């Protein structure tokens, strides 16, 4: 692209799939993906600021259009949580689910921005490597999943007590027999390890794959007139289909969050 180097499929892909990094310390771990952080923070501030501005002027009388829209979203999530979580959902779980859904949906929706036009704009701003979609960064999805995982452990201990939780770890699902304790513990360990992995990788994989498809279509569009025409049609089709995927993935991510937190609240 605008990098000046010769444009090959590999360089095109690499250009679009490289984060803007910033080193904060020694070693490979101590780097920040600035684009991921800035985009996700911007989107978060935008969407929660919007929610806040609507909610601050919320009336219990006849709601305006914006309030009705926000209420629609909130009640949709509240209904989902109500069917899964049986406790005081208003204290934490339901608003947390709202946060997850709105934020993930907004981050996923960045995938619909035309990828090369955005790259051009970022280039004008002096940002050579800048990825618009935070959820195509494994760090972002894993951060969310890991936060949910810690919340899960926190609520396990808070609701059942440390002893109760350990009891559950060693005595379920197969039984209380001491011979079965190692098996139970192993089983639960696998479950606890697999939860954040599947939680984060599902979202990451879907959105990352979606972006790759957009890139492939973009590459095809660069091959000639026929490629441009087909690329346009396919790109539009994929974008329309992708609206479903980004919403569905945000919903699945939210539902899994609610389910994990509900399981932490319920004793076996």
């Amino acid at each position, binding site marked *: 692209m605008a990098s000046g180097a010769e444009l090959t499929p590999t360089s095109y892909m690499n250009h679009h799939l490289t984060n803007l990094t910033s080193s*904060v*310390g020694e070693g*490979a*771990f*101590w*780097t*920040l*993906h600035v684009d*991921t*952080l800035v985009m*996700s*923070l911007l989107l*978060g501030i935008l969407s*929660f600021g919007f*929610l*806040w501005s609507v*909610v*601050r002027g*919320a*009336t*219990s*009388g006849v*709601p305006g259009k914006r*309030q009705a829209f*926000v*209420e629609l979203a*909130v*009640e949709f999530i*509240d209904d989902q949580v109500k069917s899964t979580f049986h406790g005081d959902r*208003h*204290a*934490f779980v*339901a*608003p*947390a689910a*709202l*946060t997850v859904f709105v*934020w993930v949906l907004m981050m996923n929706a960045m995938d619909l921005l035309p990828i090369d036009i955005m790259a051009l704009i970022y280039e004008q701003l002096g940002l050579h490597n800048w990825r618009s979609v*935070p959820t195509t*960064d*494994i*760090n*972002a999805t*894993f*951060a*969310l999943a*890991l*936060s949910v995982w810690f919340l899960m452990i926190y609520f396990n201990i808070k609701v059942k007590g440390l002893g109760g939780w350990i009891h559950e770890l060693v005595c379920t699902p197969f039984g209380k027999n001491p011979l079965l304790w190692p098996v139970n513990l192993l089983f639960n360990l696998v479950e606890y390890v697999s939860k954040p992995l599947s939680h984060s990788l599902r979202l990451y994989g879907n959105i990352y794959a979606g972006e790759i498809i957009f890139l492939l279509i973009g590459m095809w569009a660069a091959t000639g007139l026929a490629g441009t025409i087909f690329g346009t049609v396919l790109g539009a089709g994929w974008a329309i289909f992708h609206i479903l995927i980004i919403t569905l993935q945000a919903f699945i991510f939210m539902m899994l969050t609610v389910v994990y937190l509900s399981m932490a609240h319920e004793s076996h």
Partner: protein
Amino acid sequence: MNINFTLFSQAAAFAVFIWFTVKFVWPPLMRAIEDRQKTIADGLAAGERGKHQLELASHRSSDALKEAKQRAADIIAQAEKRASQIIEEAKGTAKDESDRIIVGAKAEVDQEVFRAKETLRQQVADLAVAGAAKILRREVDAKTHAELLTSIKAEL
């Protein structure tokens, strides 16, 4: 796919956003929604109550109407009865009055007849005396023959 410090920054941002939503977004909206639900429920209950009261009122009004009709019919019947009674009474009074007038008139007529007879008798007596005087060609002393004249008068 390199895990790095972004993870923790992202998790911190997530925590802040969750805290913000729990604290500032969810409760006011829920309060507004619940208030509205309560208002709507109250309104529906009030509507139901109003409907019930309307039903009661219409029952009461139809009862009152029925009673009023009944009373009106009673009053009319009574009035008719009274009217015919008054007519009967009037008829009776009129008959008595007419009877009395007739009796009075008869008495008067009898009296008149008696008086006329008396006058006639007097005149005839006078006439007879005059005739007799003429016949006797002399003045009959009325005083001396009073007894005689009276007996003649009585015979007339």
